[in-house]
């Protein structure tokens, strides 16, 4: 069964450093989502792509966060510089029909 792949699974960094997360969606899924999940809360949408285009990035802190999906397949989410409050689980999801989203295992980020 096809799955959404994410790497790394865990990342520890110091504040003010740059970090990057990678996501490979299920083949054929045009829509890709990045979420942030703070401990004890549900996931919150950061950015949504349709193919290579950003559909919604209204909740993305653009002063430090950036996301790209250059060829409409895999995607990278970057934080520069990282802050203590960025510690969270970063989840990627993909969808073929916008009704069902399939989540990857996530990247757990700890900023020291």
């Amino acid at each position, binding site marked *: 069964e096809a799955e*959404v792949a994410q790497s790394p699974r865990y990342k520890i960094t110091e504040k003010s450093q740059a970090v990057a997360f990678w996501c490979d969606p299920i083949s054929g899924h045009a*829509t890709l989502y990045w979420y942030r999940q703070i401990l*004890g*809360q*549900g*996931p*919150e*949408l950061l950015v*949504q792509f349709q193919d290579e285009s950003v559909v*919604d990035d209204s909740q993305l802190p653009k002063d430090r966060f950036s996301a790209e999906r250059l060829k409409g397949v895999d995607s990278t989410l970057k934080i520069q510089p990282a802050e203590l409050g960025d510690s969270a689980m970063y*989840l990627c*999801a993909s*969808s073929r029909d*916008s*009704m*069902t*989203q*399939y*989540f*990857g*295992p*996530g990247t*757990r980020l700890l900023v020291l």
Partner: protein
Amino acid sequence: TQLLEQSPQFLSIQEGENLTVYCNSSSVFSSLQWYRQEPGEGPVLLVTVVTGGEVKKLKRLTFQFGDARKDSSLHITAAQPGDTGLYLCAGDYSWGKLQFGAGTQVVVTP
């Protein structure tokens, strides 16, 4: 922001007991999804309910969507330790955009 409130926040029961988790909002959703999330993993979709009043059963799990499509419940019959996890509801408020609740942590002890 379309808020989804889940209750209770935490539920601890013995194996064999029944439990119900609630998801409530003042907003109408085109559909509502339930996920289960294990520690350190991403959420896994359990079910999607679309029609007001809809009831779906998945083995020992029963999902209900409110008539007004603002609330939902998840009922587990004869819970097993394997049912332990974080249960999340998520409402579709705009063409696949999901608003998640904060989740209900369920612990089933043998």
